[in-house]
């Protein structure tokens, strides 16, 4: 899944983006260079941000927007779309449209938490490994990263989750995060190596700053755009992975997600019964969310690679 569904694109991860020089950062007061303006300057990113904002609103306002509760099974089961039930009802007589609306909560939550956790792990491992380049610590961490990079993520996630009887969101988020940090960690290691020997780092060393301080307060601020891009990428992967797990019947047991809706639809033979909307809509809203997040990343790429800005 991508992320799992969407693995690091071959050939793209090899070249670390050129980091902005520290001088440029200092000149950040120049209004034209503010990060949000750069991101917003990309048409794709604008579309992505607006769409994701709409999703967030829908998730927050789910109880207001959804006509019924996500588990309210008081309707005739297996009906097609109608005015009362825009997407019909499922086997248990639950309104599918309401499920789709509530499903946005799971996807966004898994994306946010999974993205944050995976990025944090990637940052820690990538930074330490890159800063300690050439030492045993680096060798061990690089080995760990390379190993994690070649193990197919989805089968591993499936195996880990399959063992657990209670499947809450925390378990799914945790498993996704600990299996999908590797690509980003490698990217960060590559970038810190290019940053480590810059003058401002040397200056900080001479002024007696400790290693941790140098990494986190001198080097890290220069990699914000890469971290942001990695976060969006990891969040996207986590959303896809959650959906994939749910389709296999390994979704969170206490909440409805778009993946679980698809699982229920598939299990109930929705397709052979002609209940098209039940299958079509959850996948579509998922695809639109993931596309929007990919679009946002186009905008973030402009930050780290000024060459792309002439659009």
């Amino acid at each position, binding site marked *: *899944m*991508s992320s*799992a*569904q*969407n*693995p*690091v*694109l*071959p*050939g*793209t991860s*090899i*070249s670390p983006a050129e980091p902005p020089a520290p001088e440029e950062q200092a000149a950040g007061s120049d209004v034209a260079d503010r990060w949000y303006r750069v991101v917003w300057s990309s048409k794709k990113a604008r579309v992505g941000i607006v769409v994701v904002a709409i999703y967030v609103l829908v998730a927050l306002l789910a109880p207001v927007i959804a006509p019924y509760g996500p588990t309210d099974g008081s309707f005739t089961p297996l009906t097609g779309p109608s005015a009362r039930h825009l997407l019909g009802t499922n086997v248990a007589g639950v309104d599918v449209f309401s499920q789709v609306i509530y499903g946005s909560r799971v996807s966004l939550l898994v994306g946010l938490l999974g993205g944050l956790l995976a990025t944090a792990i990637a940052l820690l491992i990538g930074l330490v490994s890159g800063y300690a380049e050439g030492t045993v610590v680096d060798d061990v961490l690089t*080995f760990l990263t*390379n*190993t994690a*990079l*070649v*193990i*197919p*993520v*989805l*089968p*591993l996630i*499936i*195996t*880990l989750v*399959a*063992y*657990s009887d209670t499947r809450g969101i925390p378990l799914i988020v945790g498993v996704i995060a600990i299996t999908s940090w590797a690509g980003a960690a490698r990217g960060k290691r590559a970038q810190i190596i290019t940053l480590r020997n810059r003058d401002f780092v040397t200056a900080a060393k001479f002024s007696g700053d400790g290693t941790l301080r140098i990494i986190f307060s001198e080097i890290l601020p220069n990699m914000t755009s890469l971290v942001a891009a990695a976060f969006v990428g990891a969040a*996207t992967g986590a959303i*896809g992975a959650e*959906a*994939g797990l749910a*389709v*296999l*019947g*390994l979704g969170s047991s206490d909440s409805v997600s778009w993946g679980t809706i*698809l699982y229920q*639809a*598939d299990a109930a033979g929705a*397709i*052979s019964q*002609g209940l*098209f909307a039940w*299958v*079509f809509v959850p*996948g579509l809203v*998922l*695809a639109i969310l*993931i*596309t929007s997040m*990919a*679009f946002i990343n186009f905008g973030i790429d402009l930050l780290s690679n000024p060459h792309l800005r002439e659009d």
Partner: protein
Amino acid sequence: MRYFARKVGFFVLTLWAVVTLNFMIPRLQPGDPAELMVQNLVGKNAQLNRAQVEAMRDLLGAPSGSLFSQYWNYLGQLIQGNLGISYTYFPYSVAEVIGMAFWWTVILVGAVQVLSFAIGILLGAFAAWRRNSRFDTSVTVISTFVGTLQPFWIALLLIYGLGYGLGWFPTAGGYEASTPGFNGAFIYDAVSHAFLPALTLMIVTPIGWILGMRNTMIMNLGEDYIRLARAKGLPDRMIALRYAARNALLPSVAGFALALGGVLGGTILVETVFDYPGLGRLMGEAVGIKDYPLLQGLMLLTAVVTLVANLIADLLYGILDPRARRAAA
């Protein structure tokens, strides 16, 4: 030589790590596998019978002794190709069950991967060469969107449209009318069943190649040797194919193996949706009925296949690109 030694060394170490991980996964979980197994047989809330659990423990060849001796035992069994006994397909061993499904997936994924690679590389190279043309823009935009679609969802749509709607292709299983064997009827049967799963994967897998190839090729087109080639007045075609595309291809060779892991992952969901009798469906099944030995065997196999593919790609890369050898030395 050092490059190759390093790559082989990394392969051995990763293999060991994967095997160890696979050994540890069930041991990190709470609960006794034999108890779980009996529980599954007799029902969730039924009273556990000690004798049953003991019998099951014997049957499963239950682990005994210290963790280390278990580990040693496990390695020994693995070397003999013994992955344990499948709960569901008892008395078949995991290796036998996997063997039955193996070729279905290998042929499906193999065909899809080779085709995807060829299509992706060609489209990507052409898009980069005609950068910012209408062709380039449409290829990039379509790829970006299609790349975000979930394979299982595409599968469901294809079943709905081409399967039920138009009735062109069977929507489930690997074959039906014929008996398996090397004859025309069976091959036709199998191919028509494989068509929709293959089409699903073919929609998704070339995307990575297209975008990766395009990016590398654009980067290469900005290099000095291309400028020199242009200055020498070499024909465009030659610059595009013999110079830029050839060099841009190199990173894709390494990417090919990594992508395999992704394809295998995607196959699990696609095969499950199509009920295609390959390794992916087997995994979906193993999850559903908690056949842990089977699940683990499949996980191990997937990882080992990806590792081997990676090693081959790495070695090939070292032969094709002398710079890689020097950089690693």
